[in-house]
Every structure is written in C-alpha cells, then in structure tokens.
C-alpha cells in the first residue's frame, strides 16, 4: 500500500491575508483541488489515517478526504512548515500503511530528497510538486522503494 504525500492545495495569497499565516485558508481554486484529492485517493485502497500539518491550508486540503472516509484529520507539528528530520521520521514510521499525509512544499522537498538519497528512491529527472498534488510512496519497515507523482485534480465545483 502506498502512503500518499499531499502538498496543500492553493491558498489565498499572503498579501491578501492580514491574519496569522498558520490560519491562512485555501482559495476557491484550492478548495476545488481539495475535492479533487478525494478522486486521486480513490485510485488506492481507502486510507486508514489522515495526518496533516496544523496549518489551516493543510487541514482544509484534507477536509473533504477525511469526511469522505469518515476519518478525523490528525494535526501533527512534525508536518509544519520548516520541519525536516522530524517529518522524515514520521513518514518513515508510516511506510507500508495507506495513510494520507498533507504538508508544505519545503517539507515535501526535504522528504523526497531524503528518500532519494538514503533509500535510493527514483524521483525521475524533473520531479514536481504542484499545490494539491500527491506523491504515492511505496515501502515498508521504515524504508521506501518507489515514488509516483499524481498532479492535482480540480473538482468541477464545490
């Protein structure tokens, strides 16, 4: 079973948001990408856990998927922006499970490059990570063997 690593969907721009960055919500486009995530996850067996960075844009990205599977989205500080080794540890602990994990672009880059370096996972020549996209990571016992990219899907309407 692959673990799904999700980059949060499109959020409202920082300059249009006067509140705390952690509370910056998804844009309308991002909400449709969050709905689209349900369609991507449908390609796999239903998730057993949904985990997310505590930032609102990540929690909101996982909202529709959690509801569709009747799962509470677990917030984890290990997935917050700027994390690296703790996020990698968390991801390793979930290897071989069908958890879905949502985090930030910098954290995803850190995780993927670590897996390429340490586990020799092939990311391809020009790996991408668009907002709302998914990396399906196959592995077990804290070790990953392959990674496959799924571009974001935008639902027709919310």
């Amino acid at each position, binding site marked *: 079973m692959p673990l799904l690593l999700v980059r949060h969907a499109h959020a409202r721009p*920082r300059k249009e948001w006067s509140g705390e960055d952690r509370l910056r919500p998804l844009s309308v486009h991002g909400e449709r990408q969050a709905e689209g995530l349900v369609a991507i996850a449908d390609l796999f067996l239903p998730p057993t856990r949904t985990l997310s960075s505590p930032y609102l844009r990540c929690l909101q990205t996982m909202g529709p998927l959690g509801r569709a599977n009747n799962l509470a989205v677990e917030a984890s500080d290990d997935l917050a922006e700027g994390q690296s080794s703790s996020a990698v540890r968390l991801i390793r602990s979930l290897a071989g499970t069908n958890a879905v994990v949502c985090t930030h672009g*910098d954290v995803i880059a850190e995780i*993927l490059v670590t897996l*390429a370096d340490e586990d*020799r996972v092939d990311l391809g020549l020009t790996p991408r990570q668009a907002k709302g996209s998914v990396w399906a990571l196959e592995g077990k016992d804290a070790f990953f063997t392959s990674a496959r990219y799924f571009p974001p899907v935008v639902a027709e309407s919310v």
Partner: protein
Amino acid sequence: MGRQPELNGNEARDLLALLVQAVDKANQGLVVCNKKGRVVLRNAPARELVNARDGDFLAEKALEAALGRALAGAYHEETLDLYSPTRHTLKIRAYPLGGSNPPSGAIALVDDVSELRRLESVRRDFVANLSHELKTPLGALSLLAETLDGEEDPDVVARLTARVGAEATRFSRIVDDLLDLSRIEAGATGSLSAVALSAVIDEAVEGFQEPAAARGIRLNVAPASAVLNVMANRRDLVSAVANLVDNAIKYSEPGGAVYVDADRRGDRACLRVRDEGVGIPRRDQERIFERFYRVDRARSRWTGGTGLGLAIVRHVAAYHGGDVSVESVEGEGSTFTLWVPLANQGHVRD
C-alpha cells in the same frame, strides 16, 4: 598455402606432438572430440578451467553437452555461472569439425570470462549509481524551484534559497570529483617529482583546523621525525590526504581527535590518519574505496560527501605505486594508511 606434403609416420607423430604443445600454450581452453564424442585432445588451459578443480562437475557436463550439440551439426554457445569452489563464469563455444553432415568431430573453446563479467558489472553499477547521484540534486532543485514559485514569505524564501545553493554545490562537487577521478584513472596526471611529505600534509590539513575546532575535534599533526621525500604529483597527493583528513573529521564525534603522522617503512613512506570516531563495520571495509559506496547513507547526506573521496584516494595511491588500507573497529575509530614510494635518497636525517 599449398597442400600439406604427405607425412610419414614419424613426421606425423612429431607434428602431432608439436601441435599438442602449441595448443597447450593458448590462453583459451580447447577440447576436441572424435565423431563418437570421445575426447581426444584437451589442452592445458581446458584441464585447468574444467578438470582441475573440485566441483567442476557442472562444467564438465556442460562441455560434454556442448560437444554433443556440435556433433549434431550445430554451433553451440553457452555461459555458465559456477559457484564452487569459487565463483566464476565460463563461456563455452562448440563447433562441428570437418563438414557438418555428419561432422568428423567437434571442438569446444572454453574461456574464463569472470573478470570480464566483473568489470561489466562494475561499469553498469557505476553508470546506474552515477545517474542516481546526479539525478538526486537535480531533482531537489526541481522540487525546490516549485516550492519557491509564488512564495512570498521572506523567511521561507531565504531558507529555500539556501537549500537551492546547497544542492547546486552538491551537484558541482560530484562533477568536480568525477572529473578528478577520470583524470586520475586516465593517467593524465603529469610526471612525479620529489616532494616533501611534511609539506603535503601541511597543505592538506590547512583548511581543516577551523572546521574541526568548530565541531570540537582536535586535529593533531605529529611533527616529522625525519625528512621524507616522496615521488609524487603534489596536487593529487594533497587532495588524497585532504580527503582522508576530511573523512576523519566528519566521522568523529565532538570531543574526539584526529591524528596525522608519517614515517618511513623500508623504501616507502607511510602516512596515517587516525580518528576516534564511529568506525567502519568489518563487512564494509573492503568496499569503502568503491565509487559511490557508502556505509551510512543518512550520515553521508549530512556530511555532504560525494561518495567519491576514497575512490580518488585509492587511485592516487595506485598511480603513485603506493597503496591505501584501513583498519577500523566500530565505536573506536579508524586508521587509514597511505603508502607512497620514497624519492631516491629521500630519507635525509634532520
């Protein structure tokens, strides 16, 4: 070429004896059978390759089968992987002799292609490793670029930009080391000249005092007890020693120490770089000089090694007519020893 003159019995016997001796000198195993499949000639290499060792029952069977196929009129070729008594690979090719319908005999040629196989496999692994090692920082750049796109938080931008710089540096270090390695492997190193080993050591450790101190590691260079002049390409030898010192620091724990010393052993200089660091598991000690071989990938990621440093050291040692070896105990530390031939009258007492 004219027709062979008729030979009398003695001449034929002499010629046959000569031919048998000649085929014994070939590098290739050669086995000839008559039309009934009975082996009538087996040269020395064939006896060496197939007969001499225990456990070559499989090889003998394969040889018989190949000759049988050839006697049936068809060229036959097969590659045989054997695991006893040692791992080796034989290539057997068998041809019908004297016309094919029916052949009047058959010949099988046997080659030990183990070394060729090993080199092919080393080359394949190297290309696969190299491709992965170059793809990883490139992939990181691609991922970081997409993260930076549209990012407005200056702190995040600064952090990501630093990561981009680090990955670009990693890429360029791999390319630098590869070019060094390929220059050294190709022997494009220029001539060797007499160089004072103490000067090489001083130059090699020069840049490391500060980073070692920053990590709480003492870097001790023993003063030379005698002047040792070695035959060397100064730049490459400095680079080899620097690689050893760099590794010793990277694999030391804070509070540890790295010791560098050199002395004379016969007609060679012996330079040691010793650390009190994590050590190298016994099973890895043979392989650490291979290109891109890493004992601990996670650690290597943080220390920023290219995976080529020790391969460079080994090649530098080799073209100097020297050698490099390691002794290590896990948890206690490692000692790398670099041997380099002394220059003539290089041993001058102070």
